[in-house]
């Protein structure tokens, strides 16, 4: 009896894809934090997804692409329930979005069970793509940003560093990968500091960093906390005592950069995307994005959302509109295209993104602050997974 029920359930799941084929629309379940602490991430990605559909039309491979937006409120079990409902009730062919690591991880078993591709557009912990063979990432991993920063630092005469990261998955990834590369290149990490994710006051850790008198402080805090961090860094006079600030690009998030004020000028950081990236594709993207969103500047989250949609559209085109998970995954693996951030591709082995990482410096251009790219490390794979092989 139970076995029969189970078999029926499994058969129904297998039928989902063909049911979706029968209809003309292909549904994409977009799960994002639209309220709560991470709401700005959700807004950026949602705006980019809408823009992609406005620019490229809402059909691909002859099918209408319908995006269903759900607010996960930043809570993992809510996100999991929403994903499950999207799969069961709305029969979505893709799950996309995922602003936070725990949420992407919580949904992964559903992607596996239902054979639905999970397109991660934001969350940046390396291990996410290992959680399910159906996870594909179009954002970045923290290690991708942190390792080039370590290499650049050693080459540019920085020998003693204090690392300071937010105490959660991506932060620990950033700390580990930076420290490993920095040490193997000959630098010393004097102290590794972590701040709780929800600690608004950085003064105690900054005091510790100042006491250690390093050449530089390497920082990762999630986008949104960067402004406060940089301000307190300057207020504490760390810049004046000759301590450099090096960071992943989350700290100098494009969305926030102008509001941070001139104190951020000169901060060196590494990341996958800058709104100032010099390419025709990016100019068109930035202009259209600003126009559609009352002047809001797209950040690395938005570009992750844009490329996630691109991946979905192109995969559908390659499969001729077929929506079963294995075929879609096969189409996605190895796909390469020109993104607003530069050339990118999906690593066929790890399903993680391969992209250029840029070394940037915050400068003022035409009265606005930008991360201006001055060096490029081409085709960076996720170093954590590369090290495992």
């Amino acid at each position, binding site marked *: 009896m139970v076995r029969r029920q189970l078999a029926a359930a499994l058969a129904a799941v297998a039928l989902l894809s063909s049911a979706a084929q029968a209809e003309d629309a292909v549904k994409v379940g977009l799960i994002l934090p639209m*309220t*709560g*602490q991470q*709401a*700005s991430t*959700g*807004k950026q990605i949602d705006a980019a997804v809408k823009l992609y559909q406005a620019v490229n039309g809402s059909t691909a491979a002859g099918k209408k692409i319908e995006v269903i937006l759900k607010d996960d409120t930043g809570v993992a079990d809510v996100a999991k329930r929403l994903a499950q409902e999207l799969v069961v009730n709305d029969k979505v062919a893709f799950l996309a979005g995922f602003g936070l690591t725990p949420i992407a991880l919580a949904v992964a078993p559903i992607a596996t069970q239902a054979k639905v591709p999970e397109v991660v557009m934001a969350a940046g912990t390396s291990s996410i793509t290992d959680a399910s063979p159906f996870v594909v990432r179009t954002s970045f991993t923290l290690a991708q940003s942190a390792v080039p920063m370590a290499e650049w630092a050693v080459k540019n005469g920085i020998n003693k560093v204090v690392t300071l990261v937010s105490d959660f998955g991506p932060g620990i990834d950033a700390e580990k990968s930076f420290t490993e590369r920095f040490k193997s290149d000959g630098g010393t990490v004097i102290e590794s*500091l*972590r*701040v*709780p994710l*929800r*600690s*608004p*006051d950085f*003064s*105690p*850790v900054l*005091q*510790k960093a100042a*006491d250690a008198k390093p050449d530089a402080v390497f920082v990762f805090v999630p986008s*949104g*906390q960067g*402004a*406060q961090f940089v*301000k*307190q860094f*300057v*207020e*504490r*006079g760390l810049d*004046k005592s000759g301590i450099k600030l090096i960071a992943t690009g989350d700290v100098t998030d494009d*969305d*926030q950069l102008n*509001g*941070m*004020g001139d*104190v951020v000028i000169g901060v060196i950081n590494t990341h996958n995307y800058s709104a100032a990236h010099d390419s025709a594709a990016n100019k068109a993207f930035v202009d259209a994005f600003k126009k559609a969103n009352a002047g*809001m500047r797209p950040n690395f989250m938005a570009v992750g959302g844009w490329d996630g949609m691109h991946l979905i559209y192109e995969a559908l085109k390659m499969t001729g509109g077929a929506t079963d998970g294995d075929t879609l995954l096969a189409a996605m693996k190895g796909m390469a295209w020109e993104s607003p951030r530069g050339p990118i591709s999906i690593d066929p082995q790890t399903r993680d993104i391969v992209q250029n990482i840029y070394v940037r410096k915050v400068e003022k251009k035409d009265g606005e602050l930008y991360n201006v790219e001055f060096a490029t490390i081409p085709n960076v794979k996720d170093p954590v997974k590369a090290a495992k092989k």
Partner: protein
Amino acid sequence: MLLHLYLRAMSAMATILFDGVAYGMLLFVLACGLAVTLGLMNFVNLAHGAFAMAGGYVTVVLMDRFGLPFLACLPIAFAAAALLGLVLERTLYVHMYGRSPLDQVLFSIGLVFMAVAFVDWAMGSSPQNIKLPAWLQGRRDVFGVQVGIYRSFIIVICGGLALALQLALMRTRFGSRLRAAVDDARVARGLGIPVSTVFAVTFAVGSGLAGLGGALGAEILGLDPNFPLRFMIYFLIVVTVGGTSGIVGPFAASLLLGVADVAGKYYLPALGAFMIYLVMIAVLVLRPHGLFARPR
């Protein structure tokens, strides 16, 4: 060498203490209105932080869109939040006095949700930043101790406010009426004190102070639509630990919490995040009515 190390440790400690005091002072200005409303009307106003947020956003809008200097924005932030408080008190809150505390919780949480979503809609969900004038930035060396200029500014303003509030409470006619009303509203009413007017004014001033705190604190605490929810717990801690029978209690509690929080994160980073909760539990278990309140 040892002496040198000792001096360095002492100066670090002084800096930490200084930061903690500034943080605590800020908490006091943000929370003192709540202490008085709670003590006066026994009203659990969880929406208090929304008034602080209003002050912060008023400052951001005035500085960014209208180019007003930071100092000019501070009194406007106070006035705007006070006005908002007065209007809401007369229209909505007035219906809630005497209702069960649970209804009050539901009501004020509802207000917080509305405020959060409204600000998100009107101003976006990204954190807002206030650009301090150059003369408030940076830090000075005072007798070997590194002192942030903006934090000194906060200490001066908030300390001044605390002193003024205490004087107003103890020395003015309004203050004595307020104290009488807090002690026993019924008797005060019987003695001809216009308790509801006293309360409306107090509510407005409390909201205004929160607004000023929001404007001053945006630089240090950050400002985004979730501000009222993020800091609700801190305000409640200040009020419960300090007690609700005056402002000396909340003032001391704010300083204690500020110093414990900052010092905890510096000296005991492993314990840092829950230092303040441990302090709170300890105080409340030993003195259930707060540090300074008389048991009722």
